[in-house]
């Protein structure tokens, strides 16, 4: 049902929503609606840049509890109005955009820390809390969530759960899904459910995992219990420069196969080392591929891990040692990459072709994507780094960039060019054994590839969606659902 503002039904629904969450927490003004019409996806940003109107919600509600969320969802079912959950709006995939109008359910009022359990080392919080605020609060007690993404200051914990987000220390401490103990979820029909209290059990399939990554299509995650960790006594970084990306990748993969358990590994290809890394660090670190890694924990253990890692880098792969200084530069500047002036921005057109694959395929994926983008779009630059590493493979944070002069002024043409690059690159990634994607999610941007990716298992996802959300009100049109 579309609600025209002139219709008395608009007032009827607004009144019901106000009754559910309090009238001061139902926004229908232009600023509220505009504020929820652009996330971190390039297309709505470009659209606004060109003075074009972006799709707006009809209502913006800020519930203060799971009970209030349930009431909102029930009202939406009654009138068959879309409900789009919005955390920080920092998602890059258009996941939180109200493409079909309806209700934006902004979670940020649900921002309480409910418990820090120092016996089990867990924190229970409402999911609308901004990750930085949660991290600061546990820091104050001497702990860390170890979830340190570049968007820590703007994204909510709920957003990370919904997108299976990740932080700079993921290699040792895991992605958000590795950090979760349990969830409270308001289902699309308005029931408040809890998943099992511990993440390891043999009591059937894992419901927690089903909701993680569901991007607001299967309900609203309202509470989470996460693991926390004592702040490590030591954390040390070291960086190396390798003659080329292939050698650096081999060294990085070897480090992971050694099971030395680094907390972070990051590898920048030759182009990104020469341009981006140099710009952010403010010094010339030379040419080649820059690889940085670190360890954290007890000081003597860290020293020993570092000793073994150095052996791999220096003796097996002949890396040029940039020392701990070269490593600390990265740690100190880890968020700086994302501030305007260092990050790409309009009028440039740019996208992060986030892909994950095992070590047997990751280089193939990189080269195939790079070749395809370079051949089909000679005006696009293709750069990449590898930012989240596992025992079995890693994530490719590839990016394409068009300079402003090469982007059509007409917004439709600009969007068409943009989508065409994605089509070419993503299909190439899937063909070569890559999975889209590792931590940014699917949203509106990548929904159209879900059938290719999942092949004949996609109907299972569709079946789950139909069962949980019979009226298809939760974030319709996202994730290909």
């Amino acid at each position, binding site marked *: 049902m579309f609600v025209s503002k002139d219709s008395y039904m608009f007032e009827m629904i607004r009144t019901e929503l106000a009754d559910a969450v309090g009238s001061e*927490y139902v*926004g229908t*003004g*232009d*600023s*509220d609606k*505009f*504020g*929820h019409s*652009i996330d*971190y996806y390039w297309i709505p*940003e470009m659209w*606004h*840049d060109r*003075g074009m109107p972006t799709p707006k919600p009809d209502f*913006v509600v*800020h519930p203060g509890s799971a009970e209030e969320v349930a009431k909102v969802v029930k009202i939406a079912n009654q009138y068959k109005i879309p409900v789009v959950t*919005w955390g*920080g*709006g*920092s998602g890059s995939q258009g996941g939180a955009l109200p493409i079909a109008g309806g209700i934006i359910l*902004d979670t*940020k*009022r649900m921002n309480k820390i409910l418990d820090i359990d120092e016996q089990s080392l867990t924190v229970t919080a409402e999911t*609308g809390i*901004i990750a*930085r*605020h949660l991290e*600061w*609060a546990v*820091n*104050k007690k*001497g702990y860390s969530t170890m979830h*340190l993404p570049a*968007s820590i*200051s*703007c*994204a909510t914990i709920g957003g990370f759960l919904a997108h299976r987000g990740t932080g700079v220390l993921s290699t040792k401490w895991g992605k958000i899904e590795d950090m979760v103990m349990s969830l409270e979820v308001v289902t699309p029909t308005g029931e408040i459910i809890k998943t099992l209290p511990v993440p390891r059990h043999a009591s059937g399939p894992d419901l927690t995992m089903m909701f993680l990554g569901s991007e607001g299509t299967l309900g609203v995650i309202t509470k989470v219990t996460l693991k926390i960790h004592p702040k490590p006594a030591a954390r040390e970084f070291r960086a190396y420069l390798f003659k080329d990306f292939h050698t650096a990748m081999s060294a990085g993969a070897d480090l992971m196969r050694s099971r030395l358990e680094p907390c972070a590994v990051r590898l920048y290809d030759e182009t990104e080392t020469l341009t981006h890394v140099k710009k952010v660090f403010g010094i010339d670190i030379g040419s080649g591929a820059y690889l940085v890694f670190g360890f954290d924990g007890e000081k003597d253990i860290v020293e020993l891990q570092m000793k073994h890692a150095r052996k791999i880098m220096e003796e097996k792969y002949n890396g040029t040692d940039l020392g701990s200084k070269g490593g600390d530069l990265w740690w*100190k500047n880890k*968020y*700086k990459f*994302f*501030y*305007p*002036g*260092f990050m790409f*921005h*309009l009028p440039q057109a740019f996208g992060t072709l986030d892909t994950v694959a095992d070590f047997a395929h990751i280089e193939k994926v990189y080269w195939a994507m790079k070749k395809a983008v370079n051949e089909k779009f000679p005006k696009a630059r293709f750069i990449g780094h590898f930012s989240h590493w596992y025992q079995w493979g890693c994530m490719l944070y590839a990016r394409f960039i068009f300079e402003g002069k090469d982007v059509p002024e007409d917004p439709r043409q600009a969007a068409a060019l943009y989508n065409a690059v994605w089509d070419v690159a993503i299909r190439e990634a899937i063909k070569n054994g890559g999975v889209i994607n590792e931590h940014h999610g699917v949203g509106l941007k990548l929904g159209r590839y879900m059938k290719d990716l999942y092949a004949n298992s996609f109907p299972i996802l569709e079946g789950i969606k139909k069962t949980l959300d019979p009226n298809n009100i939760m974030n319709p049109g996202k994730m290909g659902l």
Partner: protein
Amino acid sequence: MNIDKFEEDIKKCRFCFMCRHLSAVGNVTFREADTPRIRSSMIWGVMLDKSKLSNADFIDTIYSCDMSAACRFHCVNHWDENGAVLAARRDIVEAGLAPKDVSKLSKKILSSPAAASVSGPSDIVYYADADTMALPGEMEAFDKIAKKSKIKYATATGGDCGKALKVMGYWQQAKERLGEFVDSLTAAKAKTVVVSSPYVYDALVNDTAEFGIKLSAKPMHVSEFILAQKLKFPRAAGEVYYLESDYLKNYNSNLKFPRQLLSRLKASSPAEFTTDILDEEIPYMFGTNNEESYTCGEGAVVFAQLRPQIVKKMAKYVEARVGNPKADVLITASPYTKIQLSKNTKVKVLTLTELAAGCL
């Protein structure tokens, strides 16, 4: 338009999320619109289509900004969203679109004289603005410190340094008022002007420069002045929590004087730790960080008159971060902040001056 001068800043901020955790208003209203990203995105919309300047919702949002400038201070390139909001307010006023409450308040301010009344000529003039006057304890504390330091001073009261008008967008009037205000201090032969309110300090330091007004006296915030007296403080301040001032920290990068004073007063705080952004120890830190503005809208000077409901929420936000409400003492460099916290919460608040006087 004035916003055109901020085109580069607006272009940088309009799609940037990096300082949203510091949106003191956004953190209590939960509105996306109350963040630097959306405010500058909306200003961008106005740059493309001037008719949007008159949108009542846009105007309301622009005047709901607390102007703490915490975003600019935090930003690695210090892009000036704060300046863009100020320019938008100026455009709104110049287009005759000022909202009723703003226009009413500006008229009220303009109906009183801008020149301060000074008690007599003196090298040192202590200026008590309306916020300071509303806290008799602040003036008594200053007097106690001055007497102990054997310093003679004249008191200036009344008048208006133009800051409130400036933050509301009344540029020309603010400039004229500041000129008259400065003249009244010059006429009193002041060599040093000591102020308790950080916004007055900022007007004397930065607005004079911006407006090309010559101030021959040296402006000093009271914290710097007390430090300069080399007094002995026999009583230790003990455990206190310092709330940064918007105008001292974010507008003047002045983290030093309040901290040095606190350490002279032997103040201690158990809440010291290193944040991974700043990577440095922050003594006397309140709450969990020293980046957020806990001033209840000090940056917008008259925020409590324009947005009392938001200020109340901001005060409650601060109260919720007090570890032990019965025992903890919060210290502020800003009389405005003390007034708002005292009015809206049960927390114990002292100004830096009061704390120092209590340690004598």
